[in-house]
């Protein structure tokens, strides 16, 4: 055990994902030895994201403003909407530079055992947007794993009667992974090769 402040820093670091007790101790001592200005900058960056960042009130992507930069950008195609599980997926797709429409962040995927159903996701908000905005195509870019597929199946059943073109990312993505871990080239190709979904599902 160390003195109060050092030990509580180790404890806090140890609660972060992927950081065990040994790493927590190593990082804590790195912070102690590093220059004061660098570490104050780190602390400020943490404070900033926790106080300034919120969710865009249109697409629910993380944003510093009420409406995010993507939703504010008039050069983007307002007729295209890409539905993703998390904000990290927006970043992954933006990196490919193959997509120029807008997004809708669901906040997760349907996982019945985990108690996550349509009511726990932003599905109602999606339907409202589809009624109010002039959207002609919705691209379902949920993860290429089982929960993501089931979410796409559910959304297809919900949205088919609305009369909007629905498409799903091409299955070039290996089944089982998460979008945020896909490389740009694969993800970009999946976007370009997206397939239209029929109404028979």
């Amino acid at each position, binding site marked *: 055990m160390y003195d109060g402040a050092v030990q509580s820093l180790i404890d806090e670091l140890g609660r972060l*994902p992927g950081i065990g007790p040994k790493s927590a101790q190593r990082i804590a001592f790195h912070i102690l030895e590093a220059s004061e200005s660098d570490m104050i900058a780190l602390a400020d960056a943490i404070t900033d994201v926790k106080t300034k960042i919120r969710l865009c009130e249109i697409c629910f992507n993380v944003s510093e403003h009420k409406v995010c930069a993507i939703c504010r950008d008039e050069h983007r195609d307002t007729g295209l909407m890409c539905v993703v599980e998390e904000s990290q997926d927006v970043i992954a797709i933006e990196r490919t530079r193959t997509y120029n429409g807008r997004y809708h962040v669901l906040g997760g995927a349907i996982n019945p055992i985990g108690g996550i159903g349509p009511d726990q996701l932003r599905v109602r908000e999606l339907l409202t947007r589809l009624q109010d905005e002039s959207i002609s195509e919705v691209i379902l870019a949920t993860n290429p794993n089982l929960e993501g597929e089931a979410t796409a199946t559910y959304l297809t059943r919900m949205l088919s009667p609305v009369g909007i073109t629905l498409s799903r990312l091409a299955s070039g993505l290996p089944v089982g*992974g*998460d979008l945020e871990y896909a490389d740009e080239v694969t993800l970009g190709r999946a976007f370009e090769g997206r397939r239209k979904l029929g109404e028979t599902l």
Partner: protein
Amino acid sequence: MKSLKKPLNKTPRKRSRGSGTYIAQSYRTHGIILRTYKLAEADRIIVVLTADHGQIRAVAKGVRRTTSKFGSTLEPFMHTRLQLVPRRGMDVIAQTETIHSYGMMLTNDYDTFGAASAMVETAEQLTRDDDGADGATQYRLLHGAIAALARRAAAPMMLLTSYLLRALTVAGWAPRFSECSRCGIEGTHNWLSEPMGGVVCDDCAPPQTTYVPDGVVLLLQALLVGEWPTVDQAQFADTRQATSFVAEYLQYHLEKNLQSLSVMDQG
């Protein structure tokens, strides 16, 4: 088979480690993936109901990367062969191979997906603290039910309800629909009681017991033994009553609500 390289180590996790030089021996098994939990980095914890080791929890490293060698083998509902390395805390999955690719066959229909979710959630609950022979029976039941869902053998809700009745029977909570659950007198009784464990006769029915039509009782009998021609001809109203009784009966014994059932009620 005599050519087997290593004898199957039945309970490797419980072997004493003795001196520090002990090298963990890997073991092989196969089973149905029940559920997964996200871990740090791109890892997941995988919960499996195996054919011969009961329910196990193991770590799959890097499985969320789209380049992972595990691919879809560790997605829920998949029937997968596994090679595991015992570790203190939790075993680590070294290699996998798909035996039956049920997962993706179940996601292209939402009701089928919901039924499969409720099945694996029930199996997870019923085999959680079980090391005995029941685990193997529960595995066979679950595998059969998932396979039936995948080939669309009957309506998803009926397959689920039939599975729940049989899984509860294996767990020691056999419901009775052909004789009074309390006094044992045979015949078609129409009072249905969760605490009593099935139908009860006029004399045994406590106040507040639900009365159901003959169709519901006959359907419950058919679901318990898997008499599918009778199930296929059931009236819609009867299937609803039978389904909701079984869900209540299950949750009465588990002493908790099944998350999957409430999520599927959202529509």
